[in-house]
């Protein structure tokens, strides 16, 4: 009996050791390539540093103080917030509409439409940016079309007009991510039990009544999650902004992550000095803003779930 027990515990011990060995590679990658860079991004933000010379010039919070006094930083934050609100407002509602239509039981060609509307999601954003730059170029397809049907006489300078450039960024960003929101909504819609619809039908409720009294209230928890994901992705729009407008005209479409990039790595391109420490501070601020916003949505999410749990049982 004792021998059997000790055999068993030996077996258990060996399994545990193997478990640690199995976790080891991911742990090393995580510590070395994720946690270490996160910590160092904070450390760098406290130095005046060009990225090449040794890290010796500790300046405390001076980078942050300078950041807060720089109007280009605030304008980048504003551009980020405009882009984030624009893409979220446009994308969340329209993707719900699409998902409701595609979720109807007797719709034909559901899989076909789903694929079509999902294609922009998987296309490389940096390449989309270059393609769109051409389509909306001064003699690009859109201008040629508008002139052909006689809507405008002169080509529209899409990318050199601040408001138009920002509007296009928002439209393209929404177009790019709509498919992913559609899938989120569809998974929420499919989680609604069908007998609810059946009993609503027996009660004589029509399409709109069912929509407003059954479907939409039940989608509230997933709405909060979709808003959160949409907001976070709106805060990070580097690939599209860099390749489509590159912040132009006059930094008006320069989002925060492009601002950071320009200070950290733009030096080589423009001949200006590289300011890694300052860029790190801006990066930390971007991370903080993102966390703050996701924290707010996280709290709302917990709150709505609790409320629904209370109501249902």
């Amino acid at each position, binding site marked *: 009996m004792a021998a059997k027990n000790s055999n068993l515990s030996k077996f258990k011990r060996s*399994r*545990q050791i*193997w*478990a*640690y060995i*199995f*976790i080891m590679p*991911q742990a090393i*990658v995580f510590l070395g*390539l994720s946690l270490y*860079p*996160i910590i*160092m*991004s904070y450390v*760098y933000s406290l130095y005046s540093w060009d*990225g090449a010379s040794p890290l010796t010039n500790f300046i405390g919070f001076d980078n942050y103080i300078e950041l807060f006094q720089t109007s280009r930083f605030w304008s980048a934050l504003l551009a980020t917030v405009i882009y984030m609100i624009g893409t979220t407002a446009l994308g969340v509602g329209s993707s719900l509409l699409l998902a409701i239509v595609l979720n*109807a*039981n007797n*719709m*034909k060609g559901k899989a076909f*439409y789903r*694929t*079509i*509307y*999902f*294609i922009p999601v*998987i*296309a*490389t*954003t*940096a*390449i989309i940016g*270059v*393609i*769109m730059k*051409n*389509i909306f170029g001064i003699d690009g397809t859109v201008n*040629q079309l508008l*002139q052909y049907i006689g809507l405008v006489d002169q080509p529209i300078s899409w990318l050199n007009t601040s408001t138009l450039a920002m509007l296009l960024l928002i439209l393209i960003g929404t177009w790019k991510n709509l498919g992913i929101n559609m899938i*989120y909504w569809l*998974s929420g819609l499919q989680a609604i039990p069908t007998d609810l619809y059946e009993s609503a039908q027996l009660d004589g409720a029509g*399409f709109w009544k069912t*929509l407003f009294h059954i479907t939409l209230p039940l989608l509230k928890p*997933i709405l909060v999650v979709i808003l959160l994901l949409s907001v976070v992705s709106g805060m990070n729009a*580097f*690939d599209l902004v860099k*390749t489509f407008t590159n912040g132009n005209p006059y930094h008006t479409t320069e989002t925060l992550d492009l601002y*950071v990039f320009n200070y*950290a*790595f733009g030096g*080589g391109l423009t001949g200006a000095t590289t300011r890694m420490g300052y*860029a*790190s501070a801006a*990066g*930390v601020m*971007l*991370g903080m803003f*993102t*966390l703050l916003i996701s*924290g707010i949505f996280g709290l709302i999410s917990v709150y709505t779930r609790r409320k629904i749990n209370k109501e249902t049982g």
Partner: protein
Amino acid sequence: MIITSKIVKYIIHFILLLIGLIWIFPFIWMVLGSFRSNTDFIVSGNPIPSELNWDNYTRAWVDANFSGYFVNTVIMTVATVAIVVLLCALTGYALGRVDFPGKKTILAIVVGIMFIPKGYTIIPLYELVDQLGLTNSLFGIILAESSGAHTLFVLLFTSYFATLPKEMEEAAIMDGCGFVRTFFSVMLPLAKPIIATTVIMQFIWTWSSFLVPTVLTISKPELRTLAVGMQNFVGQYSTDWAGMAAGATISLLPVLIVFILMQRYFIEGVAGAIKQ
């Protein structure tokens, strides 16, 4: 819900098709454009090419070095996907099937990492790769691309392995398999659906990755990937629209094909992400 009226249905189909056409227009524009000549591009507003022009592909492939970028992208993507799948499967297996001290802490870290403000991690990553002396090869990019907590994939593997019946493992042990062999020859093959989801999602992410390869190839143009190499057409080839369209087609076609073949797994993965 059921849409009853036939007319309403036709109207919906009409709208969906019309918007769908606009939706994929940039891709149609790209493929058609890749066969047009540059004069055609400037003179005519008609997006349909007057004749099939394969020179654009030759120009993109040879002159703009897309052959090199393509090989770089394939190596980077395949290596990263392999590393991530292996790391996540190993971790998920340990977390899903073995009780060990500290398991709950590790799960908490895997989830909690999402709630740490990240800062600008590409700068330290760049420094790290530089210090390791890996700036001269794709290896540095692969390392940087494989980084992350992979929260979604780890959780998918963990919950999948946790649901597999105990008997499968016991039978393998009876046959004399050790822990490692049980994993590789019995349990891992059973996790095919999760592997497929991880492979396709990571494939598309890595293939499309832009910031990491941009930063890590700043002084090494020959290591650039397709997404980064596209920028060549913006600067020095700024008027070569047809070449750009061909380059874009070369870059996007593999992802489109992989997606259309395996979209079920991708969409399941995305839908799984929101349930976590």
